[in-house]
């Protein structure tokens, strides 16, 4: 990696790590995982299902909150506080700044997901006393959650490149919600005709397909995840994030920093 991107990414990571809000969210996520153990104990025969479901949902939900919360300010906050001036007056190109910010936050979210995943596995071990071979699919589900974080980070960064933090949060969260129901959007496109079909199909392809990356329910019920799906989803997340980042760079390259 370009060393300037690495330095900006490291600084972004450091900023997130020193933000107290981050620890509150992680603590809350771990608390929720702990609560899953309690709820599991009163759910006869489905303790494991409850722990996996609640645990992974907590990892996903809090990671997304962190991605949106930090991501929306990545560029706009630097412009508002004018910290960007002393960065861009150095031999740093604007695309390097965007890339550094992206990798910094994505790295933060991966570390967070790892820490929270330890909590989920600890809860699972407490409930079932041992790990089964099928539990390895949890890793795939967690990996897909991380891919969601990557896409959301790219989206938050994209909106942050040209709008205020509040609007960026609204846009990113809206896309997350719509993307979660993207399969329904495709289904809707299939039963409509004319212009509605064109619009619904277009929207279904433009919004991120988060439903394909949500395997929590499947792994909670002991379902396996094929390696083919892992490859497809990885390619999809990388291409989608890459395209969104390119759009962010195109906008940011032309922006006057007043």
């Amino acid at each position, binding site marked *: 990696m370009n060393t300037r991107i690495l330095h900006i990414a490291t600084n972004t990571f450091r900023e997130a790590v020193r933000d107290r809000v981050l620890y509150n969210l992680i603590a809350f996520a771990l608390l929720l995982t702990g609560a899953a153990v309690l709820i599991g104990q009163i759910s006869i025969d489905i303790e494991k299902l409850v722990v996996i479901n609640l645990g992974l949902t907590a990892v996903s939900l809090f990671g997304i909150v962190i991605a949106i919360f930090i991501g929306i300010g990545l560029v706009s906050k630097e412009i508002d506080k004018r*910290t960007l*001036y*002393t960065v*861009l007056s150095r*031999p740093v190109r604007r695309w390097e700044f965007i890339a550094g910010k992206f990798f910094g936050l994505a790295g933060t979210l991966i570390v967070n997901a790892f820490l929270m995943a330890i909590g989920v596995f600890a809860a699972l071990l407490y409930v079932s006393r041992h790990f089964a071979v099928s539990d390895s699919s949890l890793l795939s589900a967690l990996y897909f959650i991380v891919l969601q974080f990557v896409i959301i980070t790219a989206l938050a960064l994209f909106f942050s490149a040209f709008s205020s933090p509040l609007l960026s949060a609204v846009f990113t969260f809206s896309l997350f919600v719509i993307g979660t129901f993207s399969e329904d959007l495709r289904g809707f496109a299939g039963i409509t005709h004319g212009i509605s079909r064109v619009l619904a199909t277009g929207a279904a392809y433009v919004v991120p397909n988060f439903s394909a990356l949500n395997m929590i329910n499947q792994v909670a019920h002991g379902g396996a995840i094929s390696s083919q799906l892992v490859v497809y989803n990885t390619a999809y997340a990388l291409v989608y994030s890459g395209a969104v980042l390119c759009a962010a760079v195109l906008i940011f390259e032309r922006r*006057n920093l007043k």
Partner: protein
Amino acid sequence: MAAIEILGLEKTFSVGSWRKRPKLALRPLTLSVEYGEIFGFLGPNGAGKTTTLKVLMGLVFPTSGTARILGMELDDPRMKAQIGFLPEHPYFYDYLTGRELLKYYGRLSGVDAKQLSQKTDAALERVGLRDAANLQLRKFSKGMLQRVGIAQAILHDPKLVFLDEPMSGLDPMGRREVRNLIEELKGEGKTVFFSTHILSDAEALCDRVGIIHLGELRRVGSVAELTSSVHSKVEIVWQGAVAPAAFKTFGAECHTAGDTMRAVIAEESQDTALEALRRERLRLISVTPVRMSLEDYFMTQLTHKSDPNARGEDRRDRRAASATPTQTQAYAGDRK
């Protein structure tokens, strides 16, 4: 080749939330700054100083015109590795300590990893922040932030340093230290381009100054050149309680102090004024040339109205020639 070459740089912003309208922030600006020079960019708030610096730093894109720094284009990373920039009212990552911040900027500027710690400590020492090196910036005072801002601008040993209002937020001691630092930079052969509205700093430091007002560069030259380009004045003091009637024709305001009177008049009226005193049999005490300060000159430039139809040097020449008696009288009045 000059260190900074600006050719017809112009910037228009769109303002207004709904109905966008153009606002001219910078009229075509042409300027060159030589290597090793301390150049002061003077102007009141909103004159276009910061916009000019932002364009040069690549933070804002010009509407038209070009500029080269150290002979390179504005977006050339090789050029940016050789310049330092202190923005106005700097704000830095407050979760970092002073040392961490400088190391971060040093890495971005391509400072060799082996020299980074030594250069960081040297820069902190130079701005008097050695003892606060490990303190988070959120605990820094305004003056300390300004100092760390200067440190990050000189950390990587740049050839050219841009400082936007470097004395802002500093106490008199801090201002003196920054003045000394700027002189040291010049001594090291560096070029310094700094904007300020504190004219005494510019007068004390600058080899040349440029005066910008309403986005238009009004004059460029050394302080001596600029202040001598306007009609000189003399202060005449005499004994007595009355002023000769002829003094009214000069438009001079006469002031009484005890049993003496004084008046400041244009130098070319001096002989006539002295003749009038002799005729009235008033005893002359002194005739003293009045040196125009940069501040006086600056004020005269700001009171000139901009002529949108005029262009370039012609316009400036006309202005220089149009230091009319009315304006000098106003100036004389201001000084009192």
